Protein backbone atom coordinates (compact mmCIF):
# COMPACT_ATOMS: atom_id res chain seq x y z
CA UNK A 1 0.00 0.00 0.00
CA UNK A 2 2.82 2.36 0.89
CA UNK A 3 4.51 1.62 -2.40
CA UNK A 4 1.51 2.70 -4.44
CA UNK A 5 1.18 5.84 -2.35
CA UNK A 6 4.69 6.95 -3.13
CA UNK A 7 4.38 6.33 -6.85
CA UNK A 8 1.15 8.31 -7.24
CA UNK A 9 2.51 11.22 -5.24
CA UNK A 10 5.67 11.38 -7.29
CA UNK A 11 3.87 11.32 -10.62
CA UNK A 12 1.07 13.78 -9.90
CA UNK A 13 1.80 17.02 -11.73
CA UNK A 14 0.25 20.41 -11.10
CA UNK A 15 1.14 23.43 -13.19
CA UNK A 16 1.40 25.66 -10.14
CA UNK A 17 4.13 23.63 -8.46
CA UNK A 18 6.05 22.94 -11.62
CA UNK A 19 7.43 26.46 -11.66
CA UNK A 20 9.46 26.13 -8.47
CA UNK A 21 10.30 22.43 -8.27
CA UNK A 22 8.56 20.11 -5.88
CA UNK A 23 8.62 19.94 -2.16
CA UNK A 24 9.19 16.53 -0.63
CA UNK A 25 9.75 15.35 2.86
CA UNK A 26 11.60 12.22 3.82
CA UNK A 27 11.27 10.85 7.33
CA UNK A 28 13.64 8.11 8.43
CA UNK A 29 14.58 5.85 11.30
CA UNK A 30 18.27 5.18 11.89
CA UNK A 31 19.05 1.85 13.51
CA UNK A 32 19.67 2.27 17.28
CA UNK A 33 22.87 0.16 17.15
CA UNK A 34 24.64 3.28 15.82
CA UNK A 35 26.29 4.92 18.84
CA UNK A 36 25.21 8.45 19.69
CA UNK A 37 28.58 10.02 18.81
CA UNK A 38 28.55 8.48 15.33
CA UNK A 39 25.08 9.78 14.57
CA UNK A 40 26.59 12.93 13.08
CA UNK A 41 28.33 10.82 10.41
CA UNK A 42 25.02 9.18 9.53
CA UNK A 43 23.32 12.54 9.22
CA UNK A 44 26.07 13.85 6.95
CA UNK A 45 25.80 10.73 4.76
CA UNK A 46 22.08 11.48 4.39
CA UNK A 47 22.95 15.06 3.49
CA UNK A 48 25.36 13.74 0.85
CA UNK A 49 22.55 11.73 -0.73
CA UNK A 50 20.46 14.89 -1.00
CA UNK A 51 23.33 17.00 -2.27
CA UNK A 52 24.16 14.45 -4.94
CA UNK A 53 20.71 14.96 -6.46
CA UNK A 54 20.94 18.74 -6.08
CA UNK A 55 18.09 18.86 -3.61
CA UNK A 56 17.62 22.13 -1.74
CA UNK A 57 16.91 21.59 1.95
CA UNK A 58 13.92 23.61 3.15
CA UNK A 59 13.81 22.50 6.77
CA UNK A 60 14.92 19.52 8.82
CA UNK A 61 15.02 17.93 12.21
CA UNK A 62 18.04 15.98 13.38
CA UNK A 63 17.44 12.37 14.44
CA UNK A 64 16.53 11.71 18.07
CA UNK A 65 16.19 8.38 19.80
CA UNK A 66 12.58 7.43 20.43
CA UNK A 67 10.59 4.35 21.29
CA UNK A 68 8.69 2.69 18.47
CA UNK A 69 5.08 1.80 19.10
CA UNK A 70 5.63 -1.70 17.76
CA UNK A 71 8.56 -3.95 16.98
CA UNK A 72 10.15 -3.46 13.57
CA UNK A 73 12.58 -5.81 11.90
CA UNK A 74 15.15 -5.41 9.18
CA UNK A 75 17.18 -8.05 7.43
CA UNK A 76 20.83 -7.75 8.24
CA UNK A 77 23.39 -10.25 6.87
CA UNK A 78 20.72 -12.88 6.20
CA UNK A 79 19.12 -12.52 9.61
CA UNK A 80 16.26 -10.45 10.92
CA UNK A 81 17.20 -7.92 13.56
CA UNK A 82 14.42 -6.69 15.82
CA UNK A 83 14.17 -3.11 16.96
CA UNK A 84 12.02 -1.39 19.55
CA UNK A 85 13.60 2.04 19.32
CA UNK A 86 15.29 4.13 16.63
CA UNK A 87 16.62 7.59 15.85
CA UNK A 88 13.82 9.44 14.05
CA UNK A 89 14.60 12.47 11.91
CA UNK A 90 13.25 14.15 8.79
CA UNK A 91 14.30 16.50 6.00
CA UNK A 92 12.07 18.66 3.85
CA UNK A 93 13.60 19.46 0.48
CA UNK A 94 12.91 20.75 -2.98
CA UNK A 95 13.81 18.54 -5.93
CA UNK A 96 12.73 17.28 -9.31
CA UNK A 97 10.46 14.22 -9.24
CA UNK A 98 13.06 12.01 -10.94
CA UNK A 99 15.69 13.09 -8.41
CA UNK A 100 13.31 12.40 -5.54
CA UNK A 101 12.97 8.82 -6.72
CA UNK A 102 16.77 8.49 -6.82
CA UNK A 103 16.97 9.81 -3.27
CA UNK A 104 14.38 7.26 -2.24
CA UNK A 105 16.41 4.47 -3.87
CA UNK A 106 19.53 5.61 -1.99
CA UNK A 107 17.64 5.47 1.32
CA UNK A 108 16.45 1.98 0.49
CA UNK A 109 20.03 0.80 -0.04
CA UNK A 110 21.37 2.32 3.18
CA UNK A 111 21.79 -0.52 5.72
CA UNK A 112 21.61 1.89 8.68
CA UNK A 113 18.14 3.10 7.80
CA UNK A 114 15.48 0.96 9.41
CA UNK A 115 12.54 2.61 7.69
CA UNK A 116 11.84 5.73 5.64
CA UNK A 117 8.84 7.52 4.18
CA UNK A 118 8.97 9.89 1.22
CA UNK A 119 5.95 12.15 0.91
CA UNK A 120 4.96 15.15 -1.15
CA UNK A 121 4.25 18.20 0.96
CA UNK A 122 4.21 22.02 1.00
CA UNK A 123 6.87 24.61 1.76
CA UNK A 124 5.14 26.07 4.81
CA UNK A 125 5.43 24.54 8.23
CA UNK A 126 2.71 21.91 8.60
CA UNK A 127 3.15 21.30 12.32
CA UNK A 128 0.51 22.98 14.47
CA UNK A 129 1.55 25.06 17.46
CA UNK A 130 -0.17 24.27 20.76
CA UNK A 131 -3.33 26.34 20.85
CA UNK A 132 -4.76 28.49 23.60
CA UNK A 133 -8.43 27.67 24.14
CA UNK A 134 -10.50 30.54 22.75
CA UNK A 135 -14.16 31.34 23.38
CA UNK A 136 -16.53 32.09 20.56
CA UNK A 137 -17.02 35.81 20.01
CA UNK A 138 -20.78 35.50 20.09
CA UNK A 139 -20.76 33.94 23.54
CA UNK A 140 -19.19 36.75 25.55
CA UNK A 141 -21.37 39.80 24.63
CA UNK A 142 -24.52 37.68 24.79
CA UNK A 143 -23.92 37.06 28.45
CA UNK A 144 -23.60 40.79 29.22
CA UNK A 145 -26.68 41.69 27.21
CA UNK A 146 -28.73 39.21 29.15
CA UNK A 147 -27.67 40.78 32.43
CA UNK A 148 -28.85 44.23 31.36
CA UNK A 149 -32.07 42.88 29.98
CA UNK A 150 -32.77 41.17 33.27
CA UNK A 151 -32.19 44.27 35.35
CA UNK A 152 -34.33 46.86 33.53
CA UNK A 153 -37.74 45.20 33.66
CA UNK A 154 -37.17 44.24 37.27
CA UNK A 155 -36.80 47.90 38.26
CA UNK A 156 -40.09 48.93 36.63
CA UNK A 157 -41.93 46.08 38.24
CA UNK A 158 -40.48 46.74 41.63
CA UNK A 159 -41.69 50.37 41.77
CA UNK A 160 -45.34 49.71 40.95
CA UNK A 161 -45.38 46.50 42.90
CA UNK A 162 -43.97 48.22 45.91
CA UNK A 163 -46.85 50.73 45.91
CA UNK A 164 -49.37 47.95 45.54
CA UNK A 165 -47.76 46.01 48.30
CA UNK A 166 -47.84 49.01 50.62
CA UNK A 167 -51.50 49.71 49.78
CA UNK A 168 -52.36 46.12 50.48
CA UNK A 169 -50.50 46.26 53.75
CA UNK A 170 -52.33 49.44 54.85
CA UNK A 171 -55.75 48.07 53.89
CA UNK A 172 -55.20 45.05 56.08
Amino acid at each position, binding site marked *: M*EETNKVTEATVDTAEEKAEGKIYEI*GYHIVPSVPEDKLGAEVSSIKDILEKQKAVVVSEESPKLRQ*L*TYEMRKEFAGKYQKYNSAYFGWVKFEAEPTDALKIEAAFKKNPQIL*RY*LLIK*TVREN*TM*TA*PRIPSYRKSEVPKFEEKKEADQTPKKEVSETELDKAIDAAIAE
Partner: protein
Amino acid sequence: MAFAKKQCYFTQNNIKHVDYKDLELLKKFLGPQGNIMARKRSGVSSKYQRKLAEAVKRARYMGLLPYIAR
Protein backbone atom coordinates in the same frame (compact mmCIF):
# COMPACT_ATOMS: atom_id res chain seq x y z
CA MET B 1 -30.08 12.87 19.07
CA ALA B 2 -27.03 10.95 20.13
CA PHE B 3 -24.47 13.33 18.62
CA ALA B 4 -24.63 17.12 18.80
CA LYS B 5 -23.55 18.77 15.54
CA LYS B 6 -20.02 20.14 15.84
CA GLN B 7 -17.89 22.21 13.51
CA CYS B 8 -14.85 20.68 11.91
CA TYR B 9 -11.78 21.10 14.13
CA PHE B 10 -9.50 21.76 11.16
CA THR B 11 -11.59 24.47 9.54
CA GLN B 12 -12.22 26.06 12.91
CA ASN B 13 -8.52 26.25 13.72
CA ASN B 14 -7.48 27.08 10.17
CA ILE B 15 -5.30 23.99 9.72
CA LYS B 16 -4.68 23.38 6.04
CA HIS B 17 -2.34 20.40 6.11
CA VAL B 18 -2.26 17.46 8.46
CA ASP B 19 1.29 16.39 9.27
CA TYR B 20 1.94 12.76 10.22
CA LYS B 21 4.58 13.88 12.75
CA ASP B 22 2.11 16.07 14.63
CA LEU B 23 1.24 13.40 17.16
CA GLU B 24 -0.48 15.63 19.70
CA LEU B 25 -2.93 16.71 17.02
CA LEU B 26 -3.51 13.21 15.67
CA LYS B 27 -4.06 11.74 19.13
CA LYS B 28 -7.13 13.93 19.56
CA PHE B 29 -8.82 11.90 16.87
CA LEU B 30 -7.87 8.44 18.08
CA GLY B 31 -9.90 6.10 20.22
CA PRO B 32 -8.54 4.25 23.25
CA GLN B 33 -7.29 1.36 21.08
CA GLY B 34 -5.62 3.69 18.63
CA ASN B 35 -8.43 3.52 16.08
CA ILE B 36 -9.35 6.54 13.98
CA MET B 37 -12.48 8.17 15.36
CA ALA B 38 -15.56 8.21 13.16
CA ARG B 39 -16.57 11.52 11.63
CA LYS B 40 -19.88 11.21 13.38
CA ARG B 41 -18.01 11.28 16.67
CA SER B 42 -15.37 13.96 15.99
CA GLY B 43 -17.35 16.24 13.65
CA VAL B 44 -14.46 16.51 11.16
CA SER B 45 -15.47 17.42 7.61
CA SER B 46 -14.99 14.73 4.99
CA LYS B 47 -12.18 16.68 3.31
CA TYR B 48 -10.11 16.72 6.48
CA GLN B 49 -11.15 13.25 7.56
CA ARG B 50 -9.40 11.93 4.45
CA LYS B 51 -6.27 13.96 5.21
CA LEU B 52 -6.39 12.92 8.85
CA ALA B 53 -6.75 9.24 7.96
CA GLU B 54 -3.75 9.42 5.64
CA ALA B 55 -1.63 11.17 8.29
CA VAL B 56 -2.56 8.60 10.93
CA LYS B 57 -1.71 5.74 8.59
CA ARG B 58 1.66 7.30 7.76
CA ALA B 59 2.39 7.77 11.45
CA ARG B 60 1.51 4.12 12.05
CA TYR B 61 3.83 2.97 9.28
CA MET B 62 6.66 4.99 10.81
CA GLY B 63 6.03 3.52 14.25
CA LEU B 64 4.98 6.86 15.74
CA LEU B 65 1.43 5.71 16.43
CA PRO B 66 0.31 2.16 17.23
CA TYR B 67 -1.73 0.00 14.89
CA ILE B 68 -3.36 -1.46 17.98
CA ALA B 69 -2.89 -0.07 21.48
CA ARG B 70 -3.60 -2.45 24.32
